[in-house]
């Protein structure tokens, strides 16, 4: 049973008025709201268990270390990976940077890196920098004019260019479109390509089994998965992970240091220098527990129902152009109204308590590809209900009346 009202009650931020109207939060692609258990875990940590982790020989430190490492186990299990294949980072962005930086010594001017035109800047710029450093060639997968991939085209492109590295998103943050990963990853594997999947958007909605997905690296952000800010994760197939060169250096990640030489530890410690975001890691495990307690299938069915309901209503409004793929989507509607500026629409919607995002969504190459400056993006999560959609559509119609 998926009791949406019971679930909404777990998210205190949803129950507020914005501009004297009930908040309709349709910006979960930017960051999700947090359940009470996550908020309470954070509070509990700071009010009682606060201590630094590792190497502390006192009770508080041991408790913190235990909770911290237990959280790693919880999240690793969620993704069906080994505990030592999970590195904590400060976000998906850092995770991509860690990998792109760590591959520097493995690439050269004969190497090929492939990304795609609908990536978030976080999955573009680090690869540009890597290409610059190493002389490697950076290419982008072909993308159809409508913002969808043609699987066969992609496979051919990979077979043709035999990339050393392929970095691609699991789902587009600007459009919500799902990438046809299975075929793409299969093609990459044939070429011995190292693969990195940007799961920042998809991880919450798809709760992927990473062993089954069979990529080499997968990155995500806790704050987009009901968890706290300032935390992300990197999954790496152990051998590939451990073979990356070190990224940040400092305490925690070293075996021994003299003034002239340092010996580093093995992954994941090797990549975790400095005091980690302990409170966030522990609270994030509560977010994952919360997600696991809901039935994945039900969550997904509800999200898709809300998405389809919203898509249908939005389509029926004259003058609306939708950029999102409505067939294969994690729950994001990207659109414009005639040639109105998304800024105006978003500002007016806010007057009605509707929180959407406007702009290029950190995906400028995609906007260029679609020939637009930006769009309005309404992104849904499982805690949205049908009433959210109704309020959103009604408000949008009033905005249109104001603009026309």
């Amino acid at each position, binding site marked *: 049973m998926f009791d949406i009202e019971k679930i909404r009650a777990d998210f205190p931020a949803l129950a507020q008025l914005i501009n004297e109207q009930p908040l309709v939060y349709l910006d979960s692609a930017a960051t999700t709201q947090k359940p009470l258990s996550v908020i309470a875990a954070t509070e509990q940590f700071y009010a009682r268990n606060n201590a630094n982790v590792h190497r502390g020989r006192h009770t508080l430190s041991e408790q913190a270390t235990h909770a911290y490492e237990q959280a790693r186990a919880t999240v690793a299990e969620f993704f069906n990976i080994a505990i030592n294949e999970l590195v904590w980072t400060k976000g998906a962005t850092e995770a991509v940077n860690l990998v792109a930086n760590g591959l520097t010594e493995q690439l050269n001017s004969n190497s090929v890196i492939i990304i795609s035109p609908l990536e978030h800047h976080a999955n573009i710029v680090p690869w540009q920098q890597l290409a610059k450093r190493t002389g490697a060639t950076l290419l982008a997968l072909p993308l159809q004019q409508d913002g969808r991939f043609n699987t066969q085209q992609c496979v051919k492109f990979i077979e043709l260019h035999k990339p050393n590295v392929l970095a691609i998103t699991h789902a587009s943050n600007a459009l919500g479109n799902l990438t046809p990963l299975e075929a793409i990853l299969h093609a990459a594997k044939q070429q011995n390509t190292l693969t990195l999947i940007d799961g920042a958007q998809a991880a919450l909605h798809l709760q992927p089994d990473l062993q089954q997905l069979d990529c080499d690296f997968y990155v995500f952000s806790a704050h987009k998965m009901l968890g706290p800010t300032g935390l992300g994760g990197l999954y790496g197939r152990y051998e590939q992970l451990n073979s990356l060169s070190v990224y940040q250096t400092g305490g925690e990640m070293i075996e021994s240091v003299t003034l002239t030489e340092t010996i580093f530890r093995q992954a994941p410690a090797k990549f975790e220098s400095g005091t980690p975001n302990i409170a966030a890691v522990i609270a994030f495990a509560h977010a994952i527990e919360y997600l696991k307690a809901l039935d994945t299938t039900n969550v997904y069915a509800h999200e898709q129902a809300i998405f389809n309901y919203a898509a249908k209503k939005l389509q029926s409004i004259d003058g609306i152009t939708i950029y999102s793929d409505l067939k294969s989507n994690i729950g994001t509607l990207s659109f414009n109204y005639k040639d109105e*500026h998304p*800024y*105006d629409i978003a*500002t007016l919607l806010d*007057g009605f308590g509707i929180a959407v995002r*406007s702009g290029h969504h950190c995906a400028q190459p995609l906007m260029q590809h679609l020939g637009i400056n*930006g769009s309005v993006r309404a992104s849904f999560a499982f805690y949205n209900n049908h009433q959210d959609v109704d309020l959103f559509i009604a408000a949008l119609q*009033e905005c249109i009346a*104001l*603009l026309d």
Partner: protein
Amino acid sequence: MIKTFKEIAQSLDNASAWQQKYREIMLLGKQLPAMPEVLKTDDALVPGCESKVWMYLDFDLEENTLVIVGDSDTRIVKGLLAIVLALYNGLTPEQVINTNAFAEFQRLGLIQHLSPSRGNGIKAMVERIQTMAQQKS
């Protein structure tokens, strides 16, 4: 006909609901003459904005007044810009310095649009205008 700031303030005060206020603002934007395309250079772009905002600032030595031309690709920002222009255009540096846009926007119930977090460039514009006034006074 371009409204004076006083007229603008009056019509905004008369707006019964927030929708009415925005309607008024967008109307002001519509009435603002478009900025000549040649002035829309990269230099004139106010940086860091989600919406595009151009501003061209000049000083009329003969009249001892600031000359401000601005434009935006969004209707709301253009309307807000019209208000700023109505406040400052044609004033002497001393008059500009004595005119506090923040206080006026506050009074109009529009202060949130001058927040740095808006990133719409209106605040940056006001600051540029004040800076020039300081230099010329």
